[in-house]
Structures are given as structure tokens and as C-alpha cells.
């Protein structure tokens, strides 16, 4: 299943609900476009919900890094929500777990944005 990204607003936080596989090609390009559009529209508090993401490859990991650097360079915040064991393992292996702020509860995650 290819990736799909939908967005919703919770207060001033934009939640991106990701579904499917984020891999080189359509999935990673779609993520980049989604984040670019949100930032261009002035959204600087992004919470990426990965709860329904079954699979990420190195390109998908790279897009998460792109999202993080793009948002933080605009003085925004980019955080992750609901990592599967596989995605968590990927972030541990790549040592990116220390870079991203990761949450497992949406309400608490939304409140954590300053």
C-alpha cells in the first residue's frame, strides 16, 4: 500500500496522519510535498502521526529528517507520534531517536508544543 497523508488541526498544532509505506518514490515525495505546503502556508507546529505506517525505508527516514530541518529552520517544531516497533527500531539504528521528540499520546503531544 502506498502512502497517504491527511492533515487536521488541533488548536494551533497541525497533525499529519500518515498511512501506508513511506519509501523511495511516491511515498517519500508525497511526504515532502505535504510538509512543504504546510510550512509555506505558515504552519509551524507539526505533529506527524506514524501509527498507521507499516514500513519506512532509508528514503522515508530521510524525508522525516527533511521535515524536521525544514520546520525547525523556520523556528517551528516537528514532532513524531505513535511509532510502531519497526519505525522505532529504525530511528534507534540511525541514532535519530535522540533528534526527534517522540510521543505516544496525542493529547500530551499537542500540549507539549510551546
Amino acid at each position, binding site marked *: 500500500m502506498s502512502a497517504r497523508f491527511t492533515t487536521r488541526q488541533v488548536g494551533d498544532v497541525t497533525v499529519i496522519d500518515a498511512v501506508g509505506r513511506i519509501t*523511495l518514490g511516491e511515498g517519500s515525495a508525497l511526504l515532502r510535498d505535504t510538509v512543504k505546503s504546510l510550512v509555506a502556508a505558515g504552519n509551524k507546529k507539526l505533529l506527524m502521526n506514524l501509527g498507521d505506517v507499516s514500513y519506512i525505508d*532509508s*528514503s522515508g527516514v*530521510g524525508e522525516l*529528517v527533511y521535515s524536521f530541518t525544514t520546520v525547525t529552520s523556520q523556528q517551528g517544531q516537528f514532532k513524531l507520534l505513535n511509532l510502531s516497533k519497526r519505525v522505532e527500531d529504525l530511528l534507534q539504528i*540511525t541514532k*535519530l531517536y535522540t*533528534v526527534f521528540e517522540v510521543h505516544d499520546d496525542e493529547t500530551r503531544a499537542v500540549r507539549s508544543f510551546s
Partner: protein
Amino acid sequence: MTGFTDTLLASNLASVDSAEAMVVESAAAMGFEEDAQMDLGLAIREAMVNAVAHGNAYSPDKQVRLILEAHGGAIRVTIIDQGQGFDLNQVPDPTQGENLLRESGRGLLLMQAFVDEFSVKRSPAGGAEVVLVKYASETGR
């Protein structure tokens, strides 16, 4: 289960998907646990992307050779491209501070993390030859 296939694939993303599917299907048929299937599938995917994108630069004139050997509870996959090859020791470590926020360069790290044996060398024709081995279980080694 014992098996051997030798396949030539075009240098495009469809080949990445088909190679991953082919190897995962073999792993499932050999009784690999689902997690191990996904680990192997990801490693194959990364190796194929490396061959297709970095080795062959998506050239329609170049192919990727995939050799799949299933034997004695192990799957051994050899992926050979027609690029210039590379020296593993010259590849920057993506987990080091200065590289941590780079958008690419993690494929080799993930390949090594998700299989039991990994090696890379220059093929006789000059391209990269990556070998990935995964065992169905710890006791299968």
C-alpha cells in the same frame, strides 16, 4: 527448501519493488518469521535502490543482476550493478554528528543492520557486488 534464481532487472524503482517482493516471498516459503521477512525485505530494498540509483544511475542501458539462493534455512542474495563500485570504508558514517541530519546515506547502515551477513566488493566488471545473507532462525546458522 533449496532454490536458485538468477534474474536481470531494469534500473528503475519497479525493479526495487519486484526484487523485494520476490525475496520476501521466498523467505515466507522457507518459514521465516514475519519480522525476519520484513528485515530481509528492507535490506534487499536498500541494496536494490543503491544499485539502481547510485550504481546504474537509472540508466536504461544498464541492468541489475539479482542472484537468490535458498539453502539450508538461509537465503543468500547477491546484487550486482553496472556502476563504478564503491569502497565501504569511504562511505561517511550517517550516525556521526556531522552526518546525522543529512537526508540520505543510511541505506548501507540499514542493510547491515537487518541481515546476518553482509559484504560488498567490486565485481569483475567493475560495479558493486553486494551479498546479503539471512538465516531463518538463530539455530539455522
